[in-house]
């Protein structure tokens, strides 16, 4: 059996792919799929379906994704993603996802970093609606015995023997008992939110402990400095809450008060895409305009000009959410917004086929560093999760060797002790300080020094420190500005850094090297031209 760790979009997609090939798998998760972070995804999923009379094409989707990611993504992997996108979204439609329809097919909306309407959506709850359809689909395979769910289970560690992943040790969070399972492992763990408790738009069930343990076990990570700050988030108790980019895609505008007047800074500075520039640009501009001496207060998201029809048909759920969390009706008053950590472009390093550096171990979804380069376009995360989960599963299927399905009792050993909340908070504060929207060598070195002084008292804390260290070291090594990584001391993009940072655990330290980005295959480029 193949073991899939994580039951969000990427995990479900991998399970579907394996089941269709009649390869049995375990679908392992801390909580059921309904609680996965994927249900929080809002705005939509990109595919160049060309249903809006704009002459869109997968080649343009490819170009926008590469440009959005500042050419740090693997072009061959991105080509696979963008050329498969139309079929993926049509498949979702056939699973009963209630996308809007017009006479040419699925209705699409505008999203950041893309000039054409390319984002299929279900109001502003697209993630939830896709998850519902995939959960129903996988249920059929569960019933057929092809997918065995292990809910309320936590990954303790991988079983790596002679450089090959032989299986995993899991803990049942209800009973506390551990078991050792055999078989290849597909990781679909989600992003590294858990390193930044209270500071991200993601789920609280992600502690990042699993990723931290994997790093210590020798799994390579890449582009760890690439954290996406979403421009429009609001504080709610315990975390930050996302206001979808669709708010701007449907006509919402950003302004800040300057000398008593509304300054629509994005529209003034970027006349072509305006409020829909890629997220890294918008977030950074918000930071800078707030810092200006002639501006007052916070940046406001103004949706008061949206028509009744847009509110009713496309954003009714967003309006309800904003009212519930802020008490303000966005139809009538602008909302104060702030940048918040939203997505991790980097993660477990994988090749085009989603293999990690360890044989028998694959990764997909936000936990891996694939497709998004230095900055992810809105609408590409769900696409990356569904497509990547499928690719990882196909690769695992091709390399599949049936294993012993017996589960053996195991021990969590030193990993049974949880990290202290106080430690997690201190680590998060250090990382957030060093890895803000605007960074500098000085701030990063200070963070590194503070991290060195932070005392870890258990293995989980040591692991977390090490992964945090790898993030800081990656950001220090990239002495340029690119996408989400902006260095005040190196504000220009330097082409000699058009490489991926690769982080490896070296004892208690993290070794950072730069890896060359693969060249685009000429056959793919040629087929685009035809």
């Amino acid at each position, binding site marked *: 059996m193949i073991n899939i760790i994580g039951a969000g979009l990427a995990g479900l997609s991998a399970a579907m792919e394996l089941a269709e090939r009649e390869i049995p798998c375990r679908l392992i998760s801390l909580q059921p799929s309904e*609680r*996965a972070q994927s249900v*929080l995804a809002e705005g939509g999923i990109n595919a160049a379906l060309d249903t809006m009379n704009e002459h869109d094409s997968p080649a343009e989707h490819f170009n926008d994704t590469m440009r959005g990611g500042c050419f740090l993504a693997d072009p061959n992997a991105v080509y696979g993603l963008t050329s498969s996108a139309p079929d993926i979204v049509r498949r979702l439609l*056939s699973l009963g996802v209630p996308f809007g329809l017009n006479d040419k097919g699925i209705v699409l909306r505008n999203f950041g970093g893309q000039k054409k309407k390319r984002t299929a959506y279900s109001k502003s709850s697209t993630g939830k609606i896709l998850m519902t359809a995939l959960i129903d689909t996988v249920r059929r395979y569960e019933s057929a015995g092809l997918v065995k769910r292990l809910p*309320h289970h936590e990954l303790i560690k991988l079983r790596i023997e002679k450089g090959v992943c032989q299986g995993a040790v899991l803990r049942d969070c209800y009973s506390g008992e551990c078991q050792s399972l055999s078989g290849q492992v597909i990781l679909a763990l989600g992003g590294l939110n858990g390193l930044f408790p209270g500071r991200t738009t993601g789920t609280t069930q992600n502690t990042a402990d699993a990723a931290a343990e994997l790093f210590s076990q020798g799994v390579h990570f890449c582009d760890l400095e690439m954290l996406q700050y979403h421009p429009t988030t609001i504080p709610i108790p315990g975390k930050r809450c996302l206001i979808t980019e669709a708010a701007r895609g449907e006509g919402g505008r950003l302004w800040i008060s300057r000398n008593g007047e509304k300054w629509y800074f994005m529209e003034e500075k970027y006349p072509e895409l305006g409020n829909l520039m890629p997220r890294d640009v918008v977030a950074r501009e918000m930071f800078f305009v707030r810092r200006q001496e002639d501006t007052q207060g916070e940046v406001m998201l103004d949706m008061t000009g949206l028509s009744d029809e847009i509110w009713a048909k496309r954003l009714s759920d967003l309006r309800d959410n904003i009212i519930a969390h802020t008490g303000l009706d966005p139809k009538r008053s602008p909302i104060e917004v702030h940048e918040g950590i939203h997505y991790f472009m980097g993660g477990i390093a994988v090749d085009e086929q989603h293999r990690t550096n360890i044989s028998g171990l694959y990764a997909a979804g936000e936990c891996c560093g694939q497709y998004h380069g230095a900055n992810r376009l809105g609408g590409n995360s769900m696409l990356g999760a569904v497509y990547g989960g499928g690719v990882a599963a196909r690769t695992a299927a091709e390399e599949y060797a049936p294993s012993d399905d017996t589960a053996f009792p195991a021990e969590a050993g030193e990993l049974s002790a949880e990290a202290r909340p106080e430690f997690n908070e201190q680590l998060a504060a250090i990382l957030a300080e060093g890895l803000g929207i605007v960074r500098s060598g000085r701030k990063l070195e200070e963070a590194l020094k503070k991290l060195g002084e932070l005392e870890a008292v258990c293995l989980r804390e040591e692991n977390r420190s090490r992964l945090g260290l790898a993030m800081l070291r990656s950001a220090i090594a990239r002495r340029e500005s690119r996408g989400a990584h902006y260095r005040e001391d190196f504000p220009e993009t330097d082409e000699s850094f058009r490489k991926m940072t690769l982080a490896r655990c070296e004892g208690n330290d993290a070794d950072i090297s730069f890896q060359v980005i693969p060249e685009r295959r000429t056959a793919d480029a040629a087929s685009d031209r035809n």
Partner: protein
Amino acid sequence: MLLQIEIERRMSPEHKPYTLTLKYETENKSETVAAMLQSINSNSRRQDAEGKSFEPVRWECSCLQKKCGACAMVINGRPMLACDAKLLEAAKRGRIAIGPLKKFPPVADLIVDRGPMLAALSEAKLWLTEQGLVKAENTDLAFEASRCLQCGCCLEVCPNFYAGGSFMGMAAAMPGSRLLLAAGETDKAALAAEYKKHVYGGCGKSLACRSICPAGIDIEALLVNSNAAAVWKRPWRKK
């Protein structure tokens, strides 16, 4: 305001439940039960009302914004999401009693095993076997049905539902409703038969679930529509 918080706890399914009483000070109108649980658990010097230390309270949570259903529990007698329950609004004369959902097997403290609710969906064969499509005029209804959190709040108040029973309640009716809207002819017949058996046949029409859904799903409207399609074989009525 100083609140008295009473939390029903238990070590494990084998242990007897007991009540933990503690004092909690807040003036913050937006502070939720979820935020309070996070706050007390993250304080390693936590103390109960008598000054005794206690272990962190076990509960499930994920999104903190009413979109995942993980933190469903009973708060002052009403099943709701902890992330949706404002402390100062929920308090009655300065007191808040918090306990686990009662219709599912207990695990520990506020955690129950909602596995039977999800297993029921498999038993009712809630899936498509052929290509589906939601027609343009039905997208709003299918959207609404797709929003079900599988939190279990509606089952908690239902006089007809018990875990493992043949009647599966609105937690099965919602996915059933969505699938009926997407299904082709063959699937529709099979889904309708299951729907009649596991939803329509057991619903006593008490409508206790009508105003309980934390996602605000208009359960009654969806039920009227899916009953029409599955039982009366009438076309979907527009909302």
